[in-house]
């Protein structure tokens, strides 16, 4: 295993017109870490994630993702990462398997390999029977699961999950966490999670609290609780806001 950090951000910021979505983020995520970016809606979590995924360009600062600069080496960054967005990325007119085939081609996966991986993942997420169903006919939770399968298909070394459990039923939620656990233990995948659910950040190695585009706190869940004098992360989150 190389010691290249998964993410190293320095003064990273993004403005949308007059709105300062992300102020100046300093962040280090080691390879293999389970990292959570925790904060209320509109705190800048998704903006940070879109910056790391090279979807938008920073207004200031810089960041290396898997050792590659997010501005100058966008393609190299995108080769190493997988992403599950908050909003769906599936084509509603296509079937589940057609969507996965499309994603596999974009990631340049050989057809047969993609097909066998897709079937295994669909099986695991309870979607095997829906493989030829058009996405428009799926329930909200099934759609979300299919999107997660899409994100896992290319077996990325760094996986970004933007509010992944929103809209998932308890069963799919547990499957997701089990899959993530397996990816981490078996393949050493770095997982970067954004969430506003405090309990989802509890099992993480490191948690960053984001509030109004600023980093409010950073540390292991235990450290954060100790510093805030709280027994729960919920208390930490509430303590960051006066």
């Amino acid at each position, binding site marked *: 295993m190389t010691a290249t950090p998964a993410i190293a951000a320095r003064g990273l910021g993004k403005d949308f017109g007059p709105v300062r979505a992300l102020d100046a983020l300093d962040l280090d995520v080691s390879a293999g870490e389970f990292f959570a970016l925790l904060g209320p809606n509109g705190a800048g*979590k998704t903006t940070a994630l879109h910056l790391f995924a090279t*979807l*938008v360009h920073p207004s200031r600062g810089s960041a290396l993702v898997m050792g590659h600069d997010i501005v100058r080496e966008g393609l190299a960054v995108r080769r190493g990462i997988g992403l599950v967005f908050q909003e769906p990325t599936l084509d509603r007119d296509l079937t589940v398997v*057609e969507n996965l*085939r499309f994603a596999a081609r974009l990631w340049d996966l050989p057809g047969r390999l993609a097909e066998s991986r897709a079937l295994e993942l669909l099986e695991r997420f309870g979607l095997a029977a829906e493989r030829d169903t058009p996405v428009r006919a799926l329930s909200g939770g099934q759609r979300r699961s299919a999107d997660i399968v899409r994100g896992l298909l290319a077996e990325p070394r760094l996986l970004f999950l933007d509010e992944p459990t929103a809209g998932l039923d308890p069963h799919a939620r547990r499957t997701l966490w089990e899959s993530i656990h397996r990816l981490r233990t078996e393949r050493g995948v770095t997982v970067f999670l954004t969430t506003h659910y405090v309990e989802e950040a509890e099992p993480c190695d490191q948690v960053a609290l984001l509030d109004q585009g600023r980093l409010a706190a950073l540390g292991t869940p235990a450290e954060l609780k100790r510093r805030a004098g709280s027994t729960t992360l919920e208390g930490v989150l509430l303590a960051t806001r006066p």
Partner: protein
Amino acid sequence: MRPLYGIVAREVIRFLRQRGRLWSSLARPFVWLLLAGAGFAAVFAGSRELDYRRFMAPGLLGMVVLFGAFLAALSTVVDRDAGVLRLLLVAPIERGAVALGKVLGAAVLGTGQALLVGLILVPAVGLRPGAGGVLLAASGIGLASLATGALGLALAATMRSLENFSTVMNFVVFPMLFLSGALYPVQHLARWLRVLTYVNPLAYGVDLLKHGLLAPWARSGYGGELPVPLDVAALSVCAIVCTVLATLLIAREGLTSRAGGTG
């Protein structure tokens, strides 16, 4: 190559699955032929040597290209496509490949529809082009699909959303159609309108189609009006320049306002 193939294949599957879009795109030129053709045939100055419906056949194929390729590329800004766009932008492919894939996808749709319509339309109006004519007309369809598809994508990359579709129809699509020579020869237009036809890629495509299908009437002024090499060059330049432009716009976060979402 695999990502490019994937992008094009998705466009084709989608199109074939949307039955309404499929049938309306195939029926539209025949509705025009029937309704516009019937009325204009009576007042067409050249009717003694050339039936108006024959004259408008190349233009109608140009119209199929315009609706098939240009609008397909422009629809990249439509909300329902935002999710897939987001996926394209985080996929491990160059921005140029995203642009090229989108342009090729639009061009395949435009070309496929126009060839299919042409197969019925050309014999239906009594045109009998030779092999060379068919080849010229088919190149006109293919090149015009690439050029208008690229223009549509470049335009899409400058737009935040397709809020006012009728504005686009009124100020882009219909002027492109009317100033293409599809419905009347452009040589009779006022000078300032003729200038506009020179910056309209569809005009070169329709001109190539006329070279291919209306060659016997070229001397009476109803065939192609520009040299064939000029048509080919203009369409190729438009296709390349607009694809490069779209690539640069996408690299500068064009299209991401729709794909980016909030938060």
